[in-house]
């Protein structure tokens, strides 16, 4: 039994030391990114089903892809990005245009995001253009269809200004360094790991990359900051509200985040 005791304690204590050592390693040294995100980018958890019994608070990260350069404003978040075959091969994916063998696995890649920058401004601009076009059409032909289109585009614009996430996906890479060098010196850039899966469309012979999810999707709120969040409930997706909290987050050397402060945003 002594043998079992020693091996067992080594496994239990050693594993915990390794896990906590990894956490310390991530947080020691200079952070790779420091951002102050708000409720727009960090959603509260759902409070239904088994989740009701969970007393901990984890904030989920909301990110988006920008509307295509020459496309009109699209209010829904598409997670499909168009790429060329060479770009997919550079990302480390195998040949995907084999008709009979389209089953390609997901890969973990480095994703670069821009927070509250040019991409968000461009999105607001496109939403405005869309609203103005809908307004002009309605003024020319004031019928029910055009009226609802005008209302919808007005809501989209308002959401874009007040409540939509400002964290935009820029590009993916198989190497961290290439993204870090490309965006060095920019304070509003975040590089994290995420899962992506390529697709080949046999009809139009195009390639795309489905951005599945981030490797760390949620950020735990420690007890010392939980008080600020205690009375808040998750906002309905259709509601247009100003964010109620701002969260200071750092990302360490292993690209894992942690909360350093949370403040209430006074209305």
């Amino acid at each position, binding site marked *: 039994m002594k043998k*079992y005791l020693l091996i067992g304690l080594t*496994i239990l204590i050693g*594993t915990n030391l390794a896990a906590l050592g990894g956490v310390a390693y991530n947080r020691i040294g200079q952070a790779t990114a420091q951002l102050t995100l708000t409720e727009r980018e960090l959603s509260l958890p759902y409070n239904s089903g088994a989740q009701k019994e969970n007393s901990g608070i984890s904030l989920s990260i909301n990110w988006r892809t920008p509307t295509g350069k020459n496309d009109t404003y699209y209010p829904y978040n598409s997670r499909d990005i168009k790429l060329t075959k060479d770009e997919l091969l550079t990302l480390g994916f195998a040949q995907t245009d084999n008709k*009979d063998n389209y089953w390609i696995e*997901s890969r973990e890649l480095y994703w670069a995001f821009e927070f509250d920058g040019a991409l968000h401004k461009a999105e607001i601009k496109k939403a405005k253009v869309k609203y103005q076009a809908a307004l002009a059409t309605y003024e020319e032909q004031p019928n029910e269809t055009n009226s609802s289109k005008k209302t919808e585009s007005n809501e989209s614009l308002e959401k874009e200004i007040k409540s939509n996430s400002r964290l935009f996906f820029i590009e993916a890479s198989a190497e961290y360094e290439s993204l870090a060098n490309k965006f060095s010196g920019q304070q509003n850039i975040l590089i994290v790991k995420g899962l992506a899966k390529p697709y080949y469309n046999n009809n139009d012979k195009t390639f795309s990359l489905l951005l599945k999810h981030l490797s760390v999707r949620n950020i735990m709120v420690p*007890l010392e900051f939980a008080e600020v969040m205690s009375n808040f409930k998750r906002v309905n997706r259709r509601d247009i509200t100003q964010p109620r909290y701002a969260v200071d987050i750092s990302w360490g050397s292993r690209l*894992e985040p*942690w909360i350093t402060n949370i403040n209430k945003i006074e209305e």
Partner: protein
Amino acid sequence: MEEKQFSQADAQYRVDQIHAFQQEMVELENDGVLAIPPDQTSKVQGYHSQLLQKLSATYDVDTSTQSKQLTLGMKIASLFGALAMAISIFFLFYQFWGYISTPIQVGILITAPISLFLLSLHLAQKEKSSYFSKIAALVSLSCFVLNLSMLGQIFNITPSPNAFAVWAAFAFLLAYACNARLLLFFGIVSVSSFIAMKIGTWSGMYWISFGERPENFFIPSLLVFILPQLVNHKRFAGFEVTYRVMAMIMIFLPILILSNWGKISYLSWYSNTIEGFYQLIGFVLSASVIWLGIKRRWGEVTNTGNVFFILFLYTKFFDWWWDWMPKYIFFFVLGLAALLALMVFKRIRLSNLSEGVAS
């Protein structure tokens, strides 16, 4: 007999042997084949009753049919008890962790599996039947799983397949310390998943997608099948059977999936070719393990081989005939195939029986 010389299974085998001997003696006496003098009969009976008492006291074996039935009930109760307690601990932590500071959360997560591990070892030494030590061991394992997954959530750690390696190591350790097959099952599942994840990662996929390529399970299943040949499991009842059955499930299920869905194979052939290849492999391999099971007297290997051979056969029948054959003929053909299999097994059984009588 004061110290444990052999396993509980061996002791139970001896008890069953004594009962069989006693019953056979009565039959022989009734048929007038044998008449043992009363003094010798009482000597044997005295020896047996003393031996049964000692075995019962040392190994907690069942000395009657009623106690055997009760033991089965106790095993089922301890299995459900252990699983329910493991789930309860998870929800208990979930319910209150939001009110606890991070250092205390970490402290609880680390000390819970350690204290339950110590308790399970203590109970395994004290108990004869080890029901409670097995429950404590399973709850300890689930606390360790909770430990790592919750540390991951608290500190927003990137998920890693290495967790499966340490869970497997701890599950194996507890299985051998407490002689618990359920923990061995968890150990085999965890270590096989870990190896499959690593193979998947080497081939370029994200580790959690390891199930997308069923071939990832071939190497772990082979290792799990070979392991009981290399390590002596005499003291651990049912461990060899668990290893072999799990290994066969892990090799036959992927083959069955690939024989119907060739697109998810690593092989870069046409789907139909891949499916045909794995169908052939499935038939040959299941027939081979039936033969191996009969040869090595591994009943569980023969039975698992039988089940998968029939599954391969029936899925093929379904592929060929389901769409165009009237359903009554389809099921009639299935019935005929079962009868044919029955006849084959009967012939094998008869030849085995005659070999047994001759020897």
